[in-house]
């Protein structure tokens, strides 16, 4: 356990030292979300209707933007070799790195959501439901992304390959995430969608470290 915490504190420190990169991801999220109202025009009903889906898509693209670096820096400077033969099991190492990735990219996005959703004229209640949906769903984005990041290590076009691999896998989260926020807003029960979002995250919490570990072992060989 102490090795796990030690890894987390190292990853947090590295992320904090490069916090300008983290700000870029939040700015990217805000910018993508701000583009849609320009394209569609000031139809407030339409904007409110598309807001949950658009914000989810923007969040997914932002998470993808950061996920490429998840293992790449360690792979390039040789740290990954040492971590693979180190005492912390590879699956836990991946979990530690993914957790820090979520805290440093997805969590700021969720916090920025109330500000960004002003453009869409969303009510406070709607923003609350959307943030809850993102809180439940975004961990699965980081976890699924970790598999893609591990699989594409050592390929020349990793940055483009990861979205191609991972975006299709994001579809269920996108559907349930957007529907959950929408139906809560329409006064229907959002519980089934939120349960499904949580279920996807739990499944990925188990599957992603195993899959990414296998891919990492292949990558260092």
């Amino acid at each position, binding site marked *: 356990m102490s090795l796990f915490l030690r890894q987390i504190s190292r990853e947090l420190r*590295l992320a904090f030292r*490069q916090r300008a990169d983290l700000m870029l991801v939040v700015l990217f999220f805000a910018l993508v979300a701000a583009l849609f109202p320009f394209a569609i025009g000031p139809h407030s009903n339409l904007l409110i209707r598309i807001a949950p889906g658009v914000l989810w898509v923007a969040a997914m693209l932002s998470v993808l933007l950061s996920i490429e670096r998840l293992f790449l820096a360690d792979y390039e*400077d040789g*740290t990954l*070799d040492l971590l*693979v*033969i*180190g005492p912390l099991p590879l699956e836990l190492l991946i979990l530690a790195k993914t957790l820090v990735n979520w805290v440093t990219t997805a969590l700021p996005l969720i916090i920025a959501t109330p500000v960004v959703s002003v453009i869409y004229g969303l009510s406070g209640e709607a923003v609350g439901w959307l943030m809850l949906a993102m809180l439940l769903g975004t961990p699965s984005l980081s976890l699924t992304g970790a598999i893609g990041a591990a699989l594409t290590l050592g390929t020349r076009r990793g940055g483009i390959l990861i979205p191609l691999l991972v975006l299709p896998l994001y579809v269920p989260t996108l559907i349930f995430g957007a529907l959950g926020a929408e139906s809560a807003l329409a006064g229907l029960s959002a519980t089934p969608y939120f349960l499904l979002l949580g279920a996807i995250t739990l499944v990925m919490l188990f599957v992603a470290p195993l899959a990414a570990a296998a891919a990492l072992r292949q990558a*260092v*060989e």
Partner: protein
Amino acid sequence: MPLLQGHALACSRGGREVFHDLTFSLEVGETLLITGANGSGKSTLLRLIAGLVRASEGTLSYQGNSVSDDRAAFQADLCYIGHADALKNVLSVEENLAFWDRSHSSFAEQGDSIATALEQLDLLAFRDVSTRLLSAGQRHRLALARLLVSSASVWLLDEPSVALDSTSQEKLFDILKGHGNKGGITLLTTHSEIDLPRCKRLTLDEFAVHHHPELIW
């Protein structure tokens, strides 16, 4: 009984066999100098022993037990310094080293061992300096400092004397001698002549696989 022993090891990279039927054994306190032409598999052999690359044939045994039976126990007792220095530019010299020091529980003890390691490699003055500002030779020395905080018995060094000036090389050889005197073993690849006591040699060219032209066609 040999401490570390490789028997009939073979390794393939990208479908091509790099070496085969490679056998070596090291007693307590001995050093193995691995030499050979470029591409003869020196780095591959070190990575194979570290467990990063799988052997296609043969067995590796440590303290009489097959390494593949309990790889984690063997890996806990080895320190590998490869070509890449595994240093983070955004961390200070001390922070970079501290992460790899797993031998000490208390912070005070850890601080001591890190200071000693940095001092031995003439890096103590740079303790709080950002690693980004170090020269190539200083970076390499910092990577080597991991050996001193690892408390591992088996050291695997990939061309450790590259990028070091003659003073630093002498320092490195002193450290290697000290490790041998304490009963540790070192396996290192090199192109230059290194004079160390209780030193064995392994020339990889002897284990190269000769590809016959007619077999390729």
